[in-house]
């Protein structure tokens, strides 16, 4: 653990570096998908196609995406960590539950259900997953 701390202190303590790392990771996803689009027809599906075909098994991802977006734009800040840490557990239990349910689904979820998943993911993340300070 202390080794990791030392590594982080040495390489990941400047906000500029961190910003570059995060931006590069996000950019990389876009670039890879563009490459996949160009390869289309040669047996390589794009990210979207994979998600589309597996929509019923990825209902947990819909929920999580709603949660993550809410986490970015509607972040709620709290001071006491101990009191609220159970909420995070509740959120990810829900993700896990959806993962298990999704494994047994066979048809794609309806539009209404998808909207509901996005919204409930967002609301639950807002309620249960605050930023600790």
């Amino acid at each position, binding site marked *: 653990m202390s080794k990791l701390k030392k590594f982080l202190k040495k390489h990941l303590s400047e906000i500029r570096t961190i910003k570059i790392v995060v931006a590069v990771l996000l950019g990389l996803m876009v670039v890879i998908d563009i490459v996949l689009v160009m390869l289309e027809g040669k047996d390589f599906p794009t990210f*979207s196609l994979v998600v589309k075909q597996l929509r019923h098994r990825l209902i947990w991802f819909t929920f999580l995406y709603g949660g993550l977006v809410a*986490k970015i734009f509607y972040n709620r800040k709290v001071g006491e960590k101990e009191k609220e840490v159970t909420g995070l557990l509740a959120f990810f239990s829900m993700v896990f539950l959806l993962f298990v349910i999704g494994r047994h689904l066979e048809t794609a979820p309806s539009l209404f259900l998808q909207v509901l998943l996005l919204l409930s993911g967002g609301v639950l993340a807002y309620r249960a997953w605050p930023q600790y300070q």
Partner: protein
Amino acid sequence: MMEGTGYTIVVNIMIGLALAYFIIEIMLILNDVEDDTSNVLLLEWSKGKSFFIPFALGAIAGHLFLGTTNAAFKMANGIFPVLILFGLTIIMVIIGFKVPFEKTKSFLTAILIAGLLYGHFFWSMNYIVSP
């Protein structure tokens, strides 16, 4: 369902990217710099010059999870919605750099919803073309 090595490779790339994101996020939580997790950074960027971020995230959500089945919205070429999205993004970046204005929460929400609607109607994967 499509099978084959290409499919498996792409799924593995997706898992790899998700893992990389997860590991970086944990490292950002463990390092001692305050307010540097990706959600905080993304909000900071959205409130600054890059207010296209909520639009892009909304469009991706609409594209991946929603999507109308009404073929009336379908464009002639599947690449057009992507090009328009890139065009809109570039316009928003230019506005962001040239015109400084305060990005309130309701403004970012409006942009997010606009993106979601764009993804749902114009970048849908669900168009059913009636013969």
